[in-house]
Structure formats: structure tokens, C-alpha cells
């Protein structure tokens, strides 16, 4: 991601626009971020890849607008949020429509640890989950998380504390249960 200094350095041609000369540049620089975010929520790898492609497609379609963004990564993660939410909604619909087809979606691709982490994340509220992944999974600053979630920084601070706390609680409870029932 480009620093604020770098952006200011070239007033004739905005640095981001210069660096993001093509969509190729965009995917080179941000595919990793996008996919890491998406795969934090969607365990099925092929499904996660499809959603990442949807994000890229949306970004490519609005490329000119994206180039003008001060923080393209944030902008992309905003798209990714919506696409992940769409995907999860579709997942629910799929399960409601046909149980059998969901069999094919069941995945064991994630490692046990990743699956366990995802199981814990699922027990958090949507907002808590997102805040944790953005902050700790994606390494965003609190202000960036606040910007993406349309919350004040103070609200995000509170949200993160609550999310951290709940994560530990659920994990602790799960571990205790597992110890009793190995």
C-alpha cells in the first residue's frame, strides 16, 4: 500500500494512479490481500476463489474510480466485505433449498486449526468477526477498520475489545469441553 507521503510527493500525477497503471498492477498488488480476507470467512477454497474473482471483477469494472482512491486496499476490502456477505447469504439459501447439495459444499480443506478458528469466528457477531479479521488478519489500523465498518474509531476500539474477549471466551469454553470429551 502506498504511504501518504508518497501520495503527496507527486502532485502532477497522483502516485497511486501512476502505480496502478493497469488492472494487471492492481491484481499483482492486491490479490493477496483480497483473497486472504475472503478466505478468512469462506472455508471452501474454490468458493473463496470465486468470490475473490468477483471482487477483482468489480474492481476492474470501476478501475478508473479505484485509481483515484487514496487507499485502494481499503476500497477493495470494502468490495470484498459486500461480496463475502452476498456469498454467505447465498450459502444460507443453498442450504435452505436443498440439503443434499450442501453435502458437496462441506469442506475439509481447511486445516483443523483453521477450521477451529472459523468455528469460533462463526459464533461471533458479524461485526465482531469482521473487525477481528480486518485488524488482526489483514493488519489494518484501527482507523482503517473504522473507515471500512463505517464506525467511529472509538466504537471500533470497543468492538475489538469485545470481539477479542468473546473470542477468548468461546475458545476457552471449547477447550474445556474438549478436555472433558477428548
Amino acid at each position, binding site marked *: 500500500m502506498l504511504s501518504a507521503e508518497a501520495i503527496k510527493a507527486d502532485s502532477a500525477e497522483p502516485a497511486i494512479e501512476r502505480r496502478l497503471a493497469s488492472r494487471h498492477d492492481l491484481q499483482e498488488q492486491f490479490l493477496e490481500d483480497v483473497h486472504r480476507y475472503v478466505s478468512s470467512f469462506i472455508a471452501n477454497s474454490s468458493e473463496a*476463489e470465486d468470490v475473490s474473482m468477483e471482487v477483482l471483477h468489480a474492481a476492474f469494472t470501476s478501475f478508473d474510480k479505484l485509481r483515484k482512491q487514496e487507499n485502494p486496499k481499503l476500497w477493495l476490502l470494502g468490495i470484498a466485505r459486500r461480496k463475502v456477505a452476498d456469498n454467505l447469504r447465498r450459502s444460507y439459501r443453498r442450504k435452505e433449498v436443498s440439503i443434499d447439495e450442501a453435502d*458437496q459444499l462441506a469442506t475439509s480443506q481447511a486445516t483443523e486449526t483453521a477450521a477451529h478458528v472459523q468455528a469460533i469466528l*462463526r459464533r461471533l457477531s458479524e461485526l465482531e468477526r469482521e473487525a477481528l479479521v480486518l485488524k488482526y488478519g489483514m493488519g489494518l489500523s484501527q482507523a482503517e477498520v473504522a473507515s471500512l465498518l463505517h464506525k467511529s474509531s472509538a466504537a471500533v476500539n470497543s468492538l475489538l*475489545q469485545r470481539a477479542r474477549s468473546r473470542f477468548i*471466551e468461546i475458545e476457552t469454553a471449547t477447550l474445556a469441553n474438549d478436555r472433558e470429551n477428548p
Partner: protein
Amino acid sequence: MKSTHEIDASGSLHLESLLQGNASPPTASLRRRAEVLAQEFDCAPKRRLGWKLAVAMGALLFLAAILISPTAYAAVIMHRASQALDGVASATITYREVASGNIVSRYYYDRGRWRFEQPGQEVSIYRDGQMWTYRPDLNLLSKSPSDSPFSKGFSGFKLSSFLDETPGSSGNISVEDGIPINGRAMLRVTVLNAPLQERMVFHIDKETDLPVSLDAQKPNNETWKTMETVEFTYNKNLDARLFQPNFPKTAIDEDDAKAGLAEELNKNVVTLNDGLPNPPVIRQIDVNARGHIFIALTGSMNLEFRHMWITDDQGIQYLRGQLSASDNGSDVATRLDLFVNKKRVLAQWWIPSRPLLQRPKSLTIRATSGNDQHEIARVQAPVQAPNVATIPRYLLLLGGSPKDDLKMQLEEAVKQEGFAMSLQLDPTGTRKPISDNSGVPCLVSGGPGFIHSPKDLAFALQQADTALSLCDQIAVREHGVNASVKAQILFDKYEMLRYLGHASEALAALDEAEQLDRKTNYEKMKNWTF
């Protein structure tokens, strides 16, 4: 199972490594796909930006064509369709749910003006750089400048949602020629996504190259069942009034509503701790006929006030209801930026942990420090007779769904079940850490870090059954069950029955949860001891 994380001496969690390890880097295959897509876009000739619908659809059809490796013929057809849309002056797109026959939503487009309708829920109009959104349930109207409908998330009008339904690289496109519909020859383009077992069936007019309908289908007994249909009409003379922002004269302007609420809430029922900077100030307490409490407050809810506790004069504890599931799943409602004395208004919903036998006369509201659990505030507030039917109006405006009684009952049953199952709280706020609780069979409570021995499983089971019944009622009404909620209740039920030693009933509940939630591995739970 081995712990997935280390908890250090201070109790903090290495969340970075845990959550970063949870994400996957892009595979080589994904990188290739992204590169192909980028090349396709970078090499594509510039389109005019006259009609964003056409651009979006064209690009997305192209994406579909690329992603799903269509035959060249199919790709040409899709490309022609997108080009044909370039020349359309007006359009109507209607989503219809097949099961109920109801219109889910409808979009109108006419030379840069847009109208979006969700019956009973929302009407939005975009024209001349302005967006109006009217919500009939709130009789609330908002107006704001907008550079395009899309910037406001007006995304339904881009057809991508159809294609979104079939993401995937392993599907394919097939084309059938000469399908007659209403006397016109059509091409039927079927986009199949095998891994997801979904398909979309476009009918494209051979003469105009325009899509005229789309069926979203799911497999059903070795055939395909249409779940939703989308009808397209083009170049009709649409009534100009559709694009006029003529809303009821009684509609409340959102800005006015904010001002009115700010005035209404500009009072101080009680301050939680005057000695602290920016302490929470309770602005209003409402109660409904079920005894649910609603609190509007301002001030910091960070750090010092992380934990609030409410108990009434009968000793009944109250549990935080989850608000605004449709917005953000948070337990505070802040959808509308509402400020009193420059402080943001938050809203909370509290549910009695047991059915009330007597109307509470007063509440004791406590706050404990998030760090060491010491009490930092204790205040008493009177409770008036029920003054709201379900939820207070400000809560609706702040995003405080659920708005209807069934969903409130469901939240109540789930909360009461969870509470009775684990008794996370007690009237004094004294709680046992897990280390003091060794040897006591525990239930997974998801509670605030502490596990208690179960206290009232009979009531918990009763509430779990109530919750399941409510899930089914809501499913009938909404033509679909919230599988994750129901699966969680069933899992709780399994836990309780397991604790009680009712193996067969417990496993039946677990089986049912598994049917609803295929993404959780329930296998190992089946072997837990009884």
C-alpha cells in the same frame, strides 16, 4: 484437541498469528484466473459510459464467459447481448419469487433515471444527481446527493446479481437455438455451475439480442426447479411519475426525524458514573408488554463500561438482545447517526432472563470494569408501565430490528435458553472463573469467559423447543429457515440432553443440526461422552 492458540500470562491472545494463519494466500490457479481477467479488461476497448447497466452487464457477462470457459458461440451471444443493452433507452426488471409468486423487487430505468422498489420495504429514486429513499415502514424519507445509483449500493440494477448466483470456474455455458416464447424466437443460454449445483437460464431474443427473462434454478429430484424468475422489458414508455420523488406528504424527513429524536432524548434519566470523563448517560428507558427494556444512552461505552448488568427489583436479570441483524449484528444500534449534545446515541435491548411474573418497578443498572470486574457504577432507575408496543420508534430508526413480534419472541427464547443453560450471570455479578470450576461438567455457553454448572436445564430445554418452534413459524412466513440460528439451538439442545444422559434424543438433535449446518464438523461431537 490441541489448543489452537496460546494464552499468555496476561491472558492476551496471539490473534495476529491465529487469524493470519486462518487466511489462505492465492493459489497459482487463482493468480492465473486473475491475470487473464486483468488482461481481458486492460485490452478491452473503452466503452461509452452512457448506460452503466449495459456496461456492468456487458462486463459481467464477459466475466462469466471467461470464468466458465464457454463455447465461442455462447461467448458471442453473451457479448451481443451486452452490446444490445447499450442501445436501450428504458427498462424494467422484475424479480419474482416462484414459490409465492410475489414480486421481490423491481427496477425501472429511463435515460439515466432509476427507480428501485422492494414492496413494503423501500422505494428509491435516482435522478439528476440526487437519491431519494423512502421507507414506508418508518414513513421516513432521506434525500442525498449521489453521483450514481451504484454509489449508494443500488447494485441490483446491474444484472451481476444473477451471475453472482453462479460463481465458479467449473461450470459451462450451453446454448439452444429456436426456443419460441410469445411468438418470438429465442436463444436459451444456460449457465451451469456444477459445484454449486445452480444454474441460470437466460432467454435472449434472437432478433434484438436482448435478454428477456432469466430463471435461477436449483436441482430438485433429478430435474431443475426455478426458484426465482427475472423478467426484462425494454424501451417502453415508462410513466414519468415513476421517477418523480413524490412520497407521502406525511413522510418524515430523515433530518427532521433526527432533530426531533435528539430533542426527545435530550434528557438525563441517570448518569452511570459522574466521576468519570464522558460517562454513559441514560436518556430514556422504555418497556414493552413482554417486559423487554430499551435503553437509549450517550457517552463512552468503551473500556470502563464494557460490562453492563441489569437486574430488576424482583431479582430478575436481563440479557442483552442482539439488534439490527440486518445491518451489522451488533448489540448497539447506530444506523442513523443521531446525536444529543454532540454525543452519539446508542440503543440497547434487554430481555428478562425468565418470564416475568410481576411487572418490575425499578431497575438496578451496574457497570463493571472490563479489566478487573470491579464495580464502577450502580444506579437505580424507575420503570414505568409499558409504553411501547414492541420497540420504541427511535430504535427502529437507529436500526433496531427485529421489528416484529415473532422475531422478538425468538430472541427472547434463545436468550432465556442460553441463560438457563449456563447461568452466565448472577445478581451480584460474582462469577466463577473456569479454573475454580474443575470437575464440574460444563456446557459451552459462549458466555463472557466463565462457565457455570447448569442450573435450570428443564427451563432451558423448554425454551429451546419454543425457539425451534418459532424458527419454524418464521420459516413458513419467510419461505426459508435461518439455518445457522436453528442449528445453534439444536446444538445447545444436544449439549443439554447429553448432560442429562439422554443419548438418543441428544444425537437426534445433533443430527438435525448437522442437516442444517453442513459446514461444521459434527462427527467428533457424536462421540462425546454421555
